[in-house]
């Protein structure tokens, strides 16, 4: 049985760490550089804006551009995707004085909720287990929230630079001094096209990495500064759609069971969510742990299959799919957090650092809180007479003293107990919650997703055929993500291209955007893997399962607006 991890990609973190190379007068200097205009990065930028406004003398020392946020998508929100049912506490803490929850672009508080265990034809309701209770939480499109937070950040003085990717970490004398942005205008073979524009050295006094799941430079920094946590990080793949519907949905729904298979050998754990988005839209998504073993599993197609369930068909009846997207979620929890969240000149936030509570399926409020705390630490580091090292390490202390730490600690073994089932359905898990984690089950060994031995079944024969109305094929889904990436860009995916057939099939089925295809037989027991990088929606699944995603040209990828 093959393991994808036996065929590692041609990738080395060291290639992505460099001293600044631009002449000093061509480097772009900013005060604090935030990488990623997601909830973590924008919360950081907003909080910095607040602190700078209250302390103008610090502003002076930060130069022309006190806070810059770089974002690889077309604009804040373009690459943001989540459910999302958000715990409002972090938003209130960040924006409380100026905005009430009603002022934010949400779809309102959670009106009610149900949990079902599905079989092929039936839906058995069960009472929502304690971690799944969402009373008091609010429904958002994370993409819309991102756009809103981006506007607030700009109002507070931050400069947002969209369509800009962070390719390399700039390190000088052991200290992070900024990032090198990606080139634009390279051709498929890497050559310079007519409008080639080289990247720039963007230098800053403090760099905050808020890149989200599979953060490129976050991974590089963890290697460079030895910040690996106890457990290897692992991920779930979430694929979702947004639908215009004829009948409003009156509550949030979570399901588990079908179409995932219960047998232990498959290790298929996850579940679905269906959330109302106002009166005329609904979002439906499926989240599956990437430690599954069947090479013919396709989360994209499982979602299509899920929609054919009678209960779900009814919800979507008379409706129309308006958007599709996919993204991974770090699910290693507490034990997979980096050993430290800071390094000289550097802070790590949000999903990039693995701050996600899988049993509750929550991460947005941790991202926002971590961004806010990072801003405060960065601000301390910028004060006159501050010792940067001490100031930045205060970020770790702040996170450890926050609800982020408490919550993640509480659920630290939950997924492992259920072999990564993220919907807790049993008494033991409930007991863990109610005892706030004091029920000890001992730490179980954790393995990287790519280490899972593969098996090949004919699961793919039962995916429903696309009909263009309820069930869609992958290319149509890629289209519905708004992806119109330039085709003649260099390939941004690092992958071993000659692998055993089952590994190639694993990747071909795994990728929700049909980037990988099983190619010709090489005659030596391996096949060629064909790659269509312009389909990529940058979900990150390939990094979990044996390859490595690096950022393509800024502005590429999906253009989410409702996810």
């Amino acid at each position: 049985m093959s393991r994808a991890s036996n065929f590692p990609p041609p990738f080395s973190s060291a290639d992505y760490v460099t001293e600044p190379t631009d002449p000093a007068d061509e480097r772009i200097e900013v005060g604090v550089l935030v990488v990623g205009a997601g909830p973590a990065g924008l919360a950081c930028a907003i909080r910095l804006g607040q602190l700078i406004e209250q302390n103008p003398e610090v502003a002076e020392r930060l130069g022309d551009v006190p806070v810059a946020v770089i974002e690889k998508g077309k604009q804040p929100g373009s690459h943001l995707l989540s459910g999302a049912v958000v715990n409002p506490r972090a938003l209130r803490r960040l924006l409380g004085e100026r905005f009430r929850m009603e002022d934010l672009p949400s779809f309102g508080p959670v009106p009610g909720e149900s949990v079902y265990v599905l079989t092929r034809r039936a839906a058995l309701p069960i009472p929502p287990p304690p971690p799944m209770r969402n009373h008091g939480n609010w429904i958002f499109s994370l993409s819309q929230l991102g756009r809103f937070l981006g506007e607030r950040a700009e109002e507070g003085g931050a400069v947002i630079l969209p369509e800009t990717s962070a390719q390399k970490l700039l390190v000088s004398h052991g200290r992070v001094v900024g990032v090198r942005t990606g080139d634009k205008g390279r051709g498929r073979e890497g050559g310079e096209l007519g409008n080639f524009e080289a990247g720039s050295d963007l230098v800053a006094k403090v760099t905050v990495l808020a890149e989200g799941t599979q953060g490129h430079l976050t991974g590089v920094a963890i290697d460079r500064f030895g910040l690996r946590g106890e457990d290897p990080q692992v991920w779930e793949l979430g694929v979702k759609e947004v639908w215009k519907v004829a009948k409003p949905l009156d509550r949030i729904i979570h399901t588990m069971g079908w179409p995932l298979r219960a047998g232990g050998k498959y290790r298929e754990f996850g579940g679905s969510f269906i959330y109302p988005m106002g009166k005329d839209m609904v979002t439906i998504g499926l989240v599956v742990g990437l430690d599954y073993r069947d090479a013919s599993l396709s989360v994209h197609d499982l979602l299509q299959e899920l929609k054919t369930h009678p209960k779900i068909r009814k919800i979507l009846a008379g409706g129309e799919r308006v958007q599709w997207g996919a993204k991974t979620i770090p699910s290693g929890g507490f034990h997979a957090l980096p050993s430290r969240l800071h390094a000289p000149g550097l802070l790590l936030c949000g999903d990039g650092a693995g701050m996600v509570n899988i049993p509750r399926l929550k991460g947005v409020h941790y991202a926002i809180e971590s961004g806010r705390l990072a801003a405060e630490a960065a601000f301390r580091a910028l004060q006159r007479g501050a010792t940067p090292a001490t100031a930045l390490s205060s970020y770790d202390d702040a996170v450890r003293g926050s609800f982020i730490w408490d919550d993640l600690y509480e659920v630290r073994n939950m997924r492992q107990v259920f072999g990564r089932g993220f919907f807790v359905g049993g008494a033991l898990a409930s007991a863990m919650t109610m005892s706030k984690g004091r029920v000890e089950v001992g730490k179980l060994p954790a393995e990287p997703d790519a280490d899972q031995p593969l098996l090949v079944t004919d699961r793919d024969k039962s995916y429903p055929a696309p009909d263009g109305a309820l069930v869609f094929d992958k290319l149509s889904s890629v289209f519905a993500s708004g992806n119109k990436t330039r085709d003649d860009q260099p390939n941004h995916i690092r992958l071993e291209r000659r692998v055993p057939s089952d590994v190639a099939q694993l990747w071909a089925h795994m990728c929700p955007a049909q980037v990988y295809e099983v190619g010709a037989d090489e005659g030596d027991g391996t096949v060629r893997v064909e790659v269509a990088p312009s389909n990529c929606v940058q979900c990150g699944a390939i990094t979990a399962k044996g390859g490595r995603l690096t950022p393509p040209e800024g502005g590429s990828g999906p253009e989410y607006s409702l996810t």
Partner: protein
Amino acid sequence: MPTLVFLEHHGGELQKGSLGVLAKAASLGDAAAVIAGPGASALAGEAGRYGAAKVWACEDEQVAQAVPQPRVDVLAQVVADGGYDTVLFANSVLAADVAAGLAARLDAGLNWDLTGIEFQDGELVGKRPALQDSVYADVGWTGTPRLALFRAGSFDATPTGGGDPETTGISPAYRPYSTAVKLVGQDAEAASGPSIEDADVIVAGGRGLGAPESFTLAEELAKALGGAVGATRAVVDAGWYPYSAQIGQTGKTVSPKLYVALGVSGAIQHKVGMQSSGTIVAINKDPNAPIFEFSDLGVVGDVHEIAPKLTELVRQRKR
């Protein structure tokens, strides 16, 4: 009230597109035509055969070159002299600029990209596709004159059997800026076949061709039909054909009269680049290929067998 039609000519012949518009105008009522350029009056007879009861011909020095602005002066004069309340144009690089200039000169409404025109309750209503042909709109005018620019090839140029028209010479006053543009050089089109953007016929090859060598099937058929060769993203990615031939969301958008798809599956990324083609013929051995959902003639079969036979039959017809 007769309708005035702007006729274009080139190489001593009236352009088919504008003759089609003239024939359409004649079907709506009385039609008149204006021809500007060298040899205009000699073409009046032909205009009559396509439905013009009256022809205004201008052979001034100022309209010797195919530039738009002096023609605005001509048309403005004709509209004033003849009292026309409707002026129709067949789209071309020249006609679009003439129509728009005239719209500004007369403060007259201009609806463009029309594919049809009809009377509804006594009022003229134009029909035009929008949003890459996914929606159709009825458009109208508030006030006169009404200007309409029709998509190329909207109407067939069928002679209406009219006789010789009443022909009048016209020589307006030209505004100084109208005659400021001078033609200083001209190169005829190199005989390398039409570019994808301008081609009336495109033959596109997809993965179903099987191998890069099989692209000759598309090339031969394109040559026989007098068209250009296009490619899908998949084959361009695979290096079988250059990116300049790519049709689709991240390639070129085309709307030829005829689109022949060989071994093309019809994924939506490709569809949005060619869905407004006049007629779509698809050959694919997969009966479930999405392209069959939007082709006018779908053929389930082996493109390697069918394409060469088709090419030969087309060549025979042309002899």
